[in-house]
């Protein structure tokens, strides 16, 4: 049996919980190299998304992600709103009308999401952004997609965390952290951190399905 829309709604619920729990941590990371609002903004957005979930979990996965993406764009602001909004919108387009999602379909949706975020934010690897966590996570998921779903999800979450940590020593080249130049080095990137939380939520939210 594939992944149902209700399973994916649970992932978003887990993501909302974890963002709430990490709100202070994300804001503290953003205080060091940004403008001290990443946790606050993501929590506001995911709280709004959470309210939509009961009405979406019985529909198709495309609608679930499209509505969630639109909600993030209209509630988060900053750079995170358009970026996470685009991420979910592209997943929504990739999963249009799907009531059950295969591992391969999920891989394709994550790839489309990554392409959308790159297009919107114009960041490349090593700019020290969410792309640095998301790219290895998507690649790891694709590489393991023909094995067990949980194996692929675990690989993706680990790759995201490794990507997040890999760029911590680097100098940021996009977003407000880039204004700091060398002073941005050796600070963990807040965007890569929230993206890692997203992949951990996928792993834990879908852990028992598929």
């Amino acid at each position, binding site marked *: 049996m594939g992944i149902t829309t209700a399973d994916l709604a649970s992932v978003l619920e887990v993501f909302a919980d974890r963002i709430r729990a990490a709100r202070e941590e994300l*804001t503290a990371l953003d*205080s060091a190299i*940004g*403008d*001290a*609002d990443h946790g*606050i*903004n993501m929590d*506001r957005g995911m709280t709004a998304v959470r309210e939509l979930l009961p009405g979406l979990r019985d529909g198709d996965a495309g609608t679930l992600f499209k509505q969630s993406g639109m909600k993030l*764009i*209209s*509630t*988060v*602001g*900053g*750079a*995170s*709103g*358009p*970026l996470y909004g685009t991420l979910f919108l592209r997943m929504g387009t990739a999963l249009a009308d799907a009531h059950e999602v295969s591992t391969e379909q999920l891989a394709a949706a994550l790839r489309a999401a990554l392409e959308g975020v790159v297009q*919107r*934010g114009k960041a490349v690897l090593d700019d020290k952004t969410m792309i640095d966590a998301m790219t290895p996570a998507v690649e790891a998921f694709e590489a393991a997609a023909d094995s067990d779903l949980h194996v692929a999800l675990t690989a993706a979450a680990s790759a995201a965390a490794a990507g997040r940590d890999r760029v911590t020593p680097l*100098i940021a*080249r*996009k*977003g*407000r952290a*880039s*204004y*700091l*130049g060398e*002073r941005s080095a050796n600070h963990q990137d807040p965007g890569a951190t929230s993206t890692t939380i997203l992949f951990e939520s996928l792993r834990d939210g879908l852990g028992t399905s598929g």
Partner: protein
Amino acid sequence: MKKLINTPDTLVDEELAGMAAAHADLIRIEAPNVIVRKDAPRQGKVGVISGGGSGHEPMHGGFVGLGMLDAACPGAVFTSPVPDQMLAATKAVSGGAGVLHIVKNYTGDIMNFEIAAELAGAEGIDVEAVVMADDVAVKDSLYTAGRRGVGGTVLAEKIVGAAAEAGADLATVKALCQKVQDNVRSMGMALTSCTVPAAGKPTFDIGDDEMEIGIGIHGEPGRERRKLATADEITEALATPILDDMPFQKGDRVLAFVNGMGGTPLIELYVVFRKLHEIVAGRGITIERNLVGNYITSLEMAGCSITLLKLDDELVRFWDAPVHTPALRWGV
């Protein structure tokens, strides 16, 4: 945290309600959180809108009115507004002649305004955008998000608003805004941090004997932490990189803007202006117009920024043109 607020969550809404009550002759508030000039839309006039995070008051909402902005979109504190707001503002001020978006160069602002422009375009409204990026503290290179939009934005909104009021078309208004951007440079500094209400703690720690040179308008740390210096030394440290950047040259005419970050009194800003006047005159440059006060702030941060705009007759004419907004008023 010690602030004159009710709750962080209601802060922006309550501020807007207060502005609407205080300035009902100039502005109205529309959902979702858009400050609109009372008589908008005006048929045949190019609409000029801007927006950005709250916490920089009076920018941008305080600049809505005759001869300046037609609408402003305030986001959460230090957070870009969302496309819904910019789209609502664009529609509210669209009088058939197109709408100019004045966007400060921040990653979030750019992306949200881009999405809004796409949505407005789909509804048949001509939208052009100019990105303000005048902060010389940031290196403009492939390795940064580019220079930040700071004090030059205030001057652009005044000058561009005057041109739109005089009936200039969209292409002319856009070119004028770009001209201001090309001729304006700024740099700021902070003596203290600011506290984002929802965060509850100062954005950065700074010692009693330290200052941050090159600070942005969101309490994002600058490029250099230094020992506290005198007002004259600080003015020199800000003015020199600005003057050397374009560079400004002997014989140039400028508008000098000394801006407070929110927590610095006018008595100190005039000390800065005095020294700036001396430095600029020493280079054979004439200050023809000036603006001194708190116009683009970072909540309660103490500190200042200096902005210099190279003037010509056209820019002087639009600067002098009548303006009537909550924060700037002359000629009416």
